[in-house]
């Protein structure tokens, strides 16, 4: 005889673990849930509004410099360490979670023009108006010991920019010419010059590490290959570019920050036209840095704002400014792609969230 009884599969109502949320049986019959377009529109709108409501991008300001910040760099191995150079020749090492200055070095006389950390994160290089390149240990000397550079190179001319190779022990400086230096030698292993009398910025390609690009004062951007004896190619723009940055995920794209308030993204293979022009700033753009994901970049401008652009959009997604922030000289995107650091004229380094409404907890 067959006895029919109620039988249910326990999988339908028993949770796998007690931490699972309770299963809520739902009926997805579309007739029971009408007006999906209208309802979803409302939801989307609400979500957008809430995003704006919760947008609190400013995280912290690091003060301590006694002059305008001229350059910032991030530690290559530690997310919490940031280095900054000021116009009075001081270099400070910061701890972001504590918002403290760990160390102050009087690195140069006059401006600190550029700063970059070695790829291994054990030391960093600074250049200044006193025509020197100095290499410093990342770790502070013991108490009572004087701060002294590991290495110092006295150049013939003033250096204006420096960048370290991502993988090799070489670095590049720019001034009257673009020089490639070996860390072990006191004279450049290669020196490029192509008409222009001065350069403002030089950057290594983080992916194709033999490539580098520089912004020259004759309104041009010049590409180099360290393996070649001569520069590769030059683009002359209408106005001067201040800085440029390579996309860390897409080897042949770079973006330059121009004096004409715009940023230009170029494909290095097709330099005739920029891939896209990013407009929004209302004054000269002074610095640009890509997010480590390569999806967005941040730009600092003379108009006292920093803006975040998607790499393939013509207009910015976000604009950050505060009442007290003056001309923003330098900007960097943190290595975990969650924060943005900006250094400005009024001696402050500011820490921003890359996504204004993202909940990040303690820094």
């Amino acid at each position: 005889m067959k006895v029919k009884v109620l039988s249910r599969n326990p999988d339908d109502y028993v949770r796998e673990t007690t931490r699972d949320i309770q299963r809520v049986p739902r009926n997805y019959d579309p007739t029971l849930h009408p007006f999906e377009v209208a309802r979803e529109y409302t939801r989307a709108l609400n979500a957008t509004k809430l995003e704006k409501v919760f947008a609190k991008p400013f995280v912290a300001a690091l003060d301590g410099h006694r002059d305008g910040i001229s350059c910032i760099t991030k530690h290559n191995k530690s997310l919490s360490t940031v280095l900054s150079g000021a116009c009075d020749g001081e270099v400070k090492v910061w701890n972001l979670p504590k918002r403290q200055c760990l160390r102050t070095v009087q690195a140069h006389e006059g401006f600190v023009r550029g700063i970059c950390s070695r790829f291994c994160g054990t030391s960093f290089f600074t250049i200044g108006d006193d025509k020197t390149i100095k290499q410093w240990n990342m770790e502070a000397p013991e108490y009572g010991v004087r701060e002294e550079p590991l290495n110092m190179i006295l150049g013939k001319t003033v250096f204006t920019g420096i960048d370290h190779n991502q993988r090799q022990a070489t670095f590049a400086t720019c001034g009257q010419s673009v020089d490639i230096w070996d860390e072990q030698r006191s004279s450049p292993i290669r020196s490029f010059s192509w008409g222009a009398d001065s350069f403002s910025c030089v950057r290594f390609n983080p992916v194709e590490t033999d490539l580098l690009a520089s912004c020259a004062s004759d309104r041009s951007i010049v590409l180099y290959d360290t393996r070649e004896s001569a520069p590769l190619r030059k683009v002359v723009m209408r106005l001067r570019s201040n800085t440029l940055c390579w996309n860390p995920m897409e080897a042949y794209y770079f973006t330059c920050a121009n004096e004409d308030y715009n940023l230009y993204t170029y494909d290095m293979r097709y330099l005739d036209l920029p891939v896209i022009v990013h407009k929004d700033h209302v004054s000269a753009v002074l610095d640009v840095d890509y997010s480590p994901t390569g999806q967005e970049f941040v730009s600092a401008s003379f108009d006292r704002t920093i803006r975040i652009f998607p790499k393939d959009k013509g207009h910015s997604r976000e604009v950050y400014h505060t009442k007290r922030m003056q001309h923003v000289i330098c900007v960097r995107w943190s290595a975990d792609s969650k924060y943005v650091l900006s250094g400005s004229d009024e001696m402050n380094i500011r820490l921003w969230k890359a996504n204004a409404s993202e909940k990040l907890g303690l820094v």
Partner: protein
Amino acid sequence: MAKSRSLKKTSSKDVKLSSVMSAVGDDEDDLSIDEQAISASEDEEGNDDERKHKKLLEAISAMGGRKRKKQNERSEASVEVSEFFVNAEGTGDKVNLSDLLKTMDNSSAASSNTKKQLKNLQNTKQTLELPLNKQQAEKIQRAIAYEKTAKEVSSWDDIIKQNRKAEQIVFPLKHEPSGPKRVEEVVARWKFQTPLEQEIFSVLHRNRQPTNDPVLTPAEDASLKAMSLEEAKIRRAELQKARVLQSYFEAKAKREKAIKSKTYHKFKKKDSRKCFVKDFEEMVKTNPEEALDELKKIELARMKERMSLKHQNSGKWAKSKAIMAKYDDSARKAMQEQLQMNKDLTRKIAVPSDDEHENIEDASETVPDFANDPEPVTDAVNPWMRGQLTHEKPKVSRVTTEDVQTAQEENENEEEELLGEFEKKRKLWQADEEDLIPTEEESKREEPASEVVEEDVLDKEEDVVSDEEAEDISEFSSLFRLMSSKKTIQKKKGPSQTQEGLNAPRRDDEEELLNEGEIRVRNLEDLEVLDEVVEPQPIRKQSLPETAVEKDTSEPPNKKKREISLQEVLTKEATVVKVPFLPTVVEEEEHGEQISLIKEAFAGDDVISDFIKDKKKQEADAMPKEVDLTLPGWGDWGGVGLQPSHKKRKRFTIKPTPPPPRQDRKLPDVIIPEKRSVLTASHQVIQLPFFFENVEQFESTIRTPIGQTWNTPSVVRKLTKPKVITKLGTIIEPIVKEDFIHKTTTPAGERPEITLGGNECSGDPELSSKKPLRRSRKRKNNTN
């Protein structure tokens, strides 16, 4: 090279004379460099040659055996050759090519080819082309270098495209393998601090366990080398398969163990026994000693079996089966099987070696056969137990109640038919009696509800029955009458029911009576139904007796009629249930009031007519208008009061093409504007977004809702997947070429790290090195 180049240079100078000299300023520099190079290289070559020559000479002299007197050689540089003593005699003179060639002719060292070339050079009067100027040369150099770099960089194309198309990218791109790391890797980054740790380290070192980068011990390394990845994979697959099979068999055994079915186990045992026999036979051939042991065991089992009565069909179970065997095939089979088992167990195993025993066994076998014959069972009726395998079955047992019922139904259908065969009748009666018992009981239960109504009916029925009894003549019927009367006496409470039951067979005898019986039954049922339906309403009670009386009085009442009456009753009931309509009426009134209120409130604006007007207006606006192009006074007279002729006007008016039908033409309550409105335009998509190929595709994706209300959680998660995922607190390194772009060709000259065997093969080194090379690279990848 350098030589020839310098020669060319001189020749060109020769031809072009001083004009060239003056023109190329910087050429001189080049020249000087060249000259230096030449001198240096020549010196070196000369030294080398001398040494070699000397060696050769020595070797030859040694071979000759006889020692030659060594020539005195000047090892010092002569005065003439020295660079410090170059006299400046011929400074003003030009060096001609012919001067140089003279020496060439004498020396046989220069090849004829070069001689020919030089001669050709002498004859040519053309000047060589100027070398490109610096700027141009650099330009070309740059162009080449740029192209090269651009090409190199283009290798990223695929990866960049792939990343852009990817629905989701997770950063950092290079994931560390999750899960436990190898001990060595962990240990490598860690240094000992306590003495215990130091001890452990020392042990590790003793075992030559490297703690740093190549984290494999020599033994492990060797093992890795010994087995290629493919082999390892195959072996792993085998192991996996074995493990799977094992688990499968385990599971199977478990499952089988859990089976409760007796039949299954029975079959299984049988099977295993068969298997055992087979194995045993084999064992006799291969391993006689063990077979002997087995034989002993079997013997023991046989003895036990013979001693016991286990399979002799004498147990409780067997007896019950014996009873069942009458009806049940399976029981019969079971019994036979048991007997068979007994036979099998008690049979002596034939040992093929001795025939005598066999004969004896055969003899002994006959005995149990006999013994195993079905035992005389107490049940004499059972033919199976007597060993008679007749398929005949007693008729009595054959007739089941179901059959009876069907027969009864047939009878009902053919009411006119008379039944002649008493035998059959009797069977039916009997069956009916059996059938009736439960219904009676049922009726007992039902009775109290309808007691009052029934009484009259019962009396009448009894009368009828008695009449009937008197009429019956046949023996059989009288017999039955006795039985039926008995029943009526026994069950006083439900005589009507017995009548009802009895009616069926009696129907055959007398139609009318049967009909009446049937009526009664119906009546009762009806009553019950009525009771159920009407009970709550006391007014109904009046109608009930009426119907009962009606039925009583009607002699052969019609079935249909009854049904109708039932329906009537029902309809009456339905009409009564009109009460709940009252409140709705009130509601309607309220509703009406509300409507009137609303009407009053919005008396001024007639929304509907406004809407209709609006729609008409829009329709009219959308209609393209006729364009009148007539020019008054063109072709005929014009002026005040003069209109162009109708004909002309008709000719020059352009009739518009009718627009496509409006979308809302069939929707009277809707206006769908056909014009593009500025207000909504800002919210609309102008351009088809990237990767959508047509509008339909885009619209369909836009139309599908993504919210949780319309989709399952997993689908929602999939639809709202973020494009980029980054992990908080992890450094995202720039993309690394080696991880994504693999060079297919190995660079030339690279030697394999490991070679097969110690010695190099004399043949093709490539061939011998191919396999290990691949292995080593793979291993690298793994460790990465």
